[in-house]
């Protein structure tokens, strides 16, 4: 039940995109086409679900203070290496996923196209890992947190992309078109998501 609450919280209440502002660059860049937006969202879910637990394991057994006790170095504290290790893990896992997918699921691979490599520098991925480390989740929690953060991101980008389809036909003042209206639309979607605040299942 606690895991379910965590999932609801990271999908709706603390939506990684609308409340924590992570992954905005690719969000604004890829939203104009609903199909690519959905593909990107699915790729983000996938990558988040595998990188967050991997980073959890690395942090738990190698980096956090006292983590090297099993190897006979209980005083070693490597936690300052967190950033560089996490980003390396993310980049190499994205590469790995890309190669495996190309071999065994070529259809999915071609439909995701260039979005897979782009995900490596998506702040949502690194951000989720860093939040996972900061909030000290355990293994099951980190799996759920990674997956549901990705799902929240997918929901947000699909909602935004659908709204943009309509905005295209609106008659906007000249300066408002483009980036400004995108931000305002995002703001309104974020406001809608605020109504989930305080939602808790017991």
């Amino acid at each position, binding site marked *: 039940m606690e895991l379910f609450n965590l999932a609801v919280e990271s999908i709706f209440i603390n939506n990684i995109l609308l409340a924590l*502002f992570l992954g905005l*660059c690719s969000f604004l860049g890829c939203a104009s086409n609903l199909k690519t937006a959905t593909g990107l969202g699915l790729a983000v879910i996938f990558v988040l679900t595998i990188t967050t637990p991997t980073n959890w394991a690395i942090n738990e057994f190698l980096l956090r203070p006292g983590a090297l006790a099993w190897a006979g170095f209980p005083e070693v504290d490597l936690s*300052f290496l967190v950033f560089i290790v996490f*980003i390396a893990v993310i*980049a190499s896992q994205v590469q790995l996923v890309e190669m495996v997918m190309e071999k065994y699921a070529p259809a999915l691979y071609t439909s995701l196209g260039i979005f897979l490599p782009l995900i490596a520098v998506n702040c949502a991925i690194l951000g989720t890992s860093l939040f996972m480390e900061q909030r000290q989740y355990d293994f099951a929690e980190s799996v759920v947190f990674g997956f549901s953060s990705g799902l929240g991101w997918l929901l947000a980008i699909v909602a935004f992309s659908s709204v943009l389809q309509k905005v295209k036909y609106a008659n906007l003042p000249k300066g408002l078109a483009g980036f400004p209206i*995108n931000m*305002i639309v*995002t*703001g309104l979607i974020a406001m809608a998501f605020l109504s989930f605040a305080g939602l808790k299942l017991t």
Partner: protein
Amino acid sequence: MSFRNSKEWKTFTEPIIHANPISVAVLGICSALAVTTQIIPSIILMLAMTAVITLSNVIISIMRNIIPSNIRIIVELVVIASLVILADQLLKAFLFDISKALSVFVGLIITNCIIMGRAEAFALSNTPWMSMWDGLGNGLGYGYVIIVVAFFRELLGSGSLFGIQVVPDFIYAMGYVNMGIMLLAPGVFILIGLLAWLENALKAKGGKR
């Protein structure tokens, strides 16, 4: 030739005004928005960001002739990540409270697209000296947008500036209430949208004249 006409000055001011990384190129807004509820953390983030982007531009520019082009992204990431670790450790050592307030967003400087973008677009093809000015300009261009946003958010959201209350008590007594939404996510999105609109409108007007 005075300093204001030099190439350095142009490289420095270009990203602040005409090619602002946030409001024109739409890069790096990811990490910018979450910390802008108050001015002081925003200034610190700006300083960290400017230091990282300037140094990473210089280092990558020095190495630009020896980096093999097919692994350059990894090399750039390693340089940037090491600099961010330095910045984070310095903040933790000397400004612990603010580093707590910034939480994971110092680390997220790594994935800030501005730094990667400048490394790719500028530092790989220019001398270290020019790259330094480009880095400084981009860092400050980024900083000025987040400080403007933080100014409005702090003023409207908590009625204070730099942590000091500026909205006098008698206005509250007359029924004025802080706009809580400015401190929450939707407020920022809408605020940035309006600021970018204002900027576009001003530019269009200046172009006509």
